[in-house]
């Protein structure tokens, strides 16, 4: 980038508040812009105002949630988002986030198209390579992409439009105020038009010191807020979409790794190397920290060869550990309640949740080309900057010699926050001195990949005279690995965090993501972690699927004890009218309370996170408690400002399916240091037959800034499904997934 030409821009407006930001003109032959906030919003200050109006004491997440933390950390580099208008009239935007199916490239393209008055088909959003100068602004997580880029992308595009208009004005000798933009062109009052493509060179070079620009008022949006299909849908349905392993990188040959019989085991010796090297198609073999890598002409041959390896292994880090032992340790770790149930009536409950594989359909994979003096990596990466740093250190190259390309990938659900596939591919490439195309087998992905940690929950609520007096939730969890750059972000924003004391990163994340949406008097929610050396990672909604899911179950039981209907009870205790409107919507649309045949029941759940809230009402067929099926679902969500309602509905649908799976059947059994499950025939993620055929989703009208929505759908649906199951069967679910037999023969270790 060259020296920026600064032009000051001022934006004033009621909802947004007074801000000043600069528009930088990056030296380029065509118009390329980036914007910066000079006075970023104080996310904390803004949210405190909201929290001040809530009944009951605010919890940390009411004051400042994890999303606010991410936005704050990313603000100093928000001006480095780059938008280019090309000579063929397209707008190209480099998004420093990972698209993994959540639809952010479509939503961001919509924002650019809206602000530029350009057809959506002329906007190209590509994923940026790892850009270390972005510091903490290249992490995809916390349902934060739209929240964090909504302002900066619109400002960049608005500045670009203003420059294009100014260029047309200069060409025609007309005041810019007389000109309009439409359909990718500037239009003069006399009907003359100039396409953006014809103006972009001039717009890039014109000195415009006093240029002002501000994004359109949201009331003028015609594309943003309307249901829009994915920009990459055609590539997906024709097979043209190129995922990491579909790339043709010169010389990168199929490679797989033989992994140990227990988690984190290591190679002591390879006992039949010569024999395996002589197998059909085998090209090379190397011992790496995670196992024995085999490269072959095809993945089928690589798999045959790695299966044929005779390896002597050193032990792993949790070899003697099985589910029973883990559960025992979690129960011991749960902190005691503060309030003894002496003088009041109370409800107590304990819950257990199993490990859950992220299981994205595209297994862990990467391409790496490591040379003497440089390296190039291709992978689906949600934290590419940390990946680049770690890989550079591991292969002994300066960071500046490592290029990391972020590829669109086949699902994540939190999994691709970690870059273990990319790191392993780099280590193999260095060891073999060749480019490698690394793929994990499904079995390895489930057993040696990452998982949502098992958790144990103790909840106690005391009540009297129709009021809930105290509410305590003690969570004990196997440690969730958050070492993907979040630590740096939390450290950098520590002064602004609404949590006091010397909390761990995990406790801070817990407190900035989990809150009780009800006015339950004195509320405490505490996390205590058990550090076990296993491969874990945040799983869609981090702690909330389990923590808030369990709470929604307890809320039903509390309502029953207090003689109230579950919807009426929630309605009475929710803190805001906005929340009540969402609950009312599902109760009305789902015909709450309608008569159901024996074995069927309705259930309801509610959840509030990242400035969004949702309610879910399901109907379950549990005539056979061993094979329940959710047959109908009604979901309502208020996300503040939906950018693409169609994509938002897809996210809620995904959250519902995740909840169906993990509540009823999908989990991992840990047996002597390794998950037993090794494929979808054993890890029972929902299939078509487990999915309801009748799902209706209602998006509440826009009113404010966008909230987070990518993970929102899971916790409410977990509660709704468990509550429906309890009402249909009379069985109070306490351990999840509810049906969790080992109904298969495990694959050999």
């Amino acid at each position, binding site marked *: 980038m060259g020296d920026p030409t600064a032009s000051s821009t001022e934006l004033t407006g009621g909802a947004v508040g007074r801000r000043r930001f600069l528009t930088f003109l990056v030296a380029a032959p065509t118009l390329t812009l980036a914007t910066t906030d000079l006075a970023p919003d104080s996310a904390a200050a803004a949210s405190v105002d909201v929290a001040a109006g809530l009944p009951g004491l605010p919890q940390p997440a009411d004051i400042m949630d994890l999303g606010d933390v991410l936005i704050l950390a990313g603000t100093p580099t928000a001006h480095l988002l780059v938008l280019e208008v090309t000579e063929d009239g397209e707008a190209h935007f480099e998004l420093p986030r990972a698209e*993994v*199916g*959540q*639809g952010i490239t479509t939503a961001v393209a919509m924002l650019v198209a809206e602000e530029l008055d350009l057809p959506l088909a002329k906007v190209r959003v590509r994923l940026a390579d790892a850009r270390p100068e972005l510091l903490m602004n290249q992490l995809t997580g916390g349902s934060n992409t739209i929240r964090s880029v909504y302002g900066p992308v619109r400002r960049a595009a608005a500045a670009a439009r203003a420059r294009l208009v100014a260029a047309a004005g200069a060409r025609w000798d007309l005041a810019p105020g007389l000109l309009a933009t439409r359909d990718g062109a500037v239009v003069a009052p006399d009907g003359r038009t100039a396409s953006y493509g014809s103006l972009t060179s001039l717009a890039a070079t014109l000195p415009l010191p006093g240029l002002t620009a501000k994004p359109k008022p949201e009331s003028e949006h015609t594309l943003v807020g309307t249901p829009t*299909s*994915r920009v*990459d*849908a055609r*590539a*997906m*349905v*024709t*097979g*043209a979409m*190129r*995922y990491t*392993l*579909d790339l043709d990188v010169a010389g990168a040959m*199929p490679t797989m790794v033989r992994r140990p019989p227990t988690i984190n085991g290591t190679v002591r010796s390879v006992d039949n190397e010569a024999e395996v090297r002589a197998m*059909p198609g085998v090209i090379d073999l190397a011992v790496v920290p995670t196992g024995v890598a085999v490269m072959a*002409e*095809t*993945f*089928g*041959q690589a*798999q045959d060869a790695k299966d044929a390896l005779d390896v002597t292994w050193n032990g792993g880090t949790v070899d003697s550990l099985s589910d029973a032992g883990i559960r025992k340790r979690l129960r011991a770790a749960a902190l005691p309640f503060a309030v003894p149930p002496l003088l009041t009536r109370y409800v107590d409950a304990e819950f257990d949740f199993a490990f859950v594989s992220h*299981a*994205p*359909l*595209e*297994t862990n994979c990467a391409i790496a080309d490591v040379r003497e003096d440089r390296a190039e990596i291709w992978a689906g990466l949600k934290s590419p900057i940390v990946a680049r740093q770690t890989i550079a250190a591991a292969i002994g190259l300066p960071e500046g010699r490592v290029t990391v390309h972020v590829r669109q*990938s*086949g*699902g*994540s*659900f939190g999994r691709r926050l970690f870059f273990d596939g990319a790191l392993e591919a780099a280590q193999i490439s260095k060891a073999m001195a060749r480019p490698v195309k690394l*793929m994990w*087998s*499904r079995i390895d992905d489930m057993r040696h990949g990452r998982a949502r940690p098992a958790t144990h929950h103790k909840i106690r609520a005391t009540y009297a005279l129709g009021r809930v007096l105290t509410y305590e939730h003690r969570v004990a969890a196997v440690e969730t690995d958050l070492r993907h750059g979040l630590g740096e972000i939390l450290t950098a924003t520590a002064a602004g965090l609404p949590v006091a004391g010397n909390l761990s990163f995990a406790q801070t994340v817990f407190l900035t993501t989990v809150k009780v949406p009800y006015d339950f008097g004195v509320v405490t929610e505490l996390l205590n972690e058990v550090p076990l050396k296993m491969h874990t990672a945040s799983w869609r909604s981090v702690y909330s699927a389990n923590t808030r899911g369990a709470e929604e179950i307890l809320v039903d039981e509390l309502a029953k004890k207090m003689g109230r209907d579950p919807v009426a009870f929630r309605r009475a205790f929710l803190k805001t009218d906005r929340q009540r409107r969402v609950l009312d919507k599902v109760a009305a649309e789902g015909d709450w309370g309608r008569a159901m045949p024996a074995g069927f029941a309705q259930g309801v759940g509610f959840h509030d996170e990242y400035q969004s809230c949702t309610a879910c009402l399901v109907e379950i067929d549990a005539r056979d408690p061993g094979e329940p099926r959710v047959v109908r679902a009604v979901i309502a969500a208020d996300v503040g400002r939906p950018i693409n309602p*169609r*994509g938002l509905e*897809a996210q809620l*649908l*995904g959250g*519902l*399916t*995740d909840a169906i*799976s993990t509540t009823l059947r999908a989990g991992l059994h840990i047996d002597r240091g390794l998950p037993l499950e090794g*494929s*979808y*025939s054993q890890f029972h*993620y*929902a*299939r*078509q*037959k487990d*999915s*309801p*055929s009748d*799902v209706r989703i209602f998006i509440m009208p826009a009113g404010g800034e966008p909230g987070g929505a990518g993970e929102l759908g899971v916790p409410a649906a977990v509660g709704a499904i468990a509550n429906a199951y309890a009402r249909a069967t009379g069985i109070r679910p306490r351990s999840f997934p509810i049906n969790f037999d080992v109904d298969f023969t495990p694959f050999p270790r």
Partner: protein
Amino acid sequence: MPAYTFAVNGRTVTVDAPADMPLLWVLRDRLGVTGPKYGCGIDVCKACTSHLDGEAINPCVVAVSEVAGREVTTIEGLADGDALHPVQEAWLEQDVAQCGYCQPGQIMAAVALLRKTANPTDAEIDAIQNVCRCGTYVRIREAIKRAAAKM
């Protein structure tokens, strides 16, 4: 090594390969046909679903020797030039895909089902085993019904 000649998406190909090499790797690693995806390798996730003489198969468990002299169709061969198959169109209309990785297999499974039965029942749609980890099943069902109505 034996040579096997068969058709892929209307093009005749000859491949030198061991008889038991799974078709998936012949397609992906030898022929560069990457539409069929690996998801499990054992006919469980169905992400690689393609057609052999018009019937749904899972190339991860079909040996190359079994396809000699026959017609293999992958997702890349479904459209007629730029004109999409009605099932692909229905997929676009319902905006089914999220991450998209399973969708070539889902579409090929749906096309095979609609070939057998013009108006599939919910129970017949339920019988589709293809895993969608993003959980797009509701839209898949709607798209199949929409395509059925079109065809």
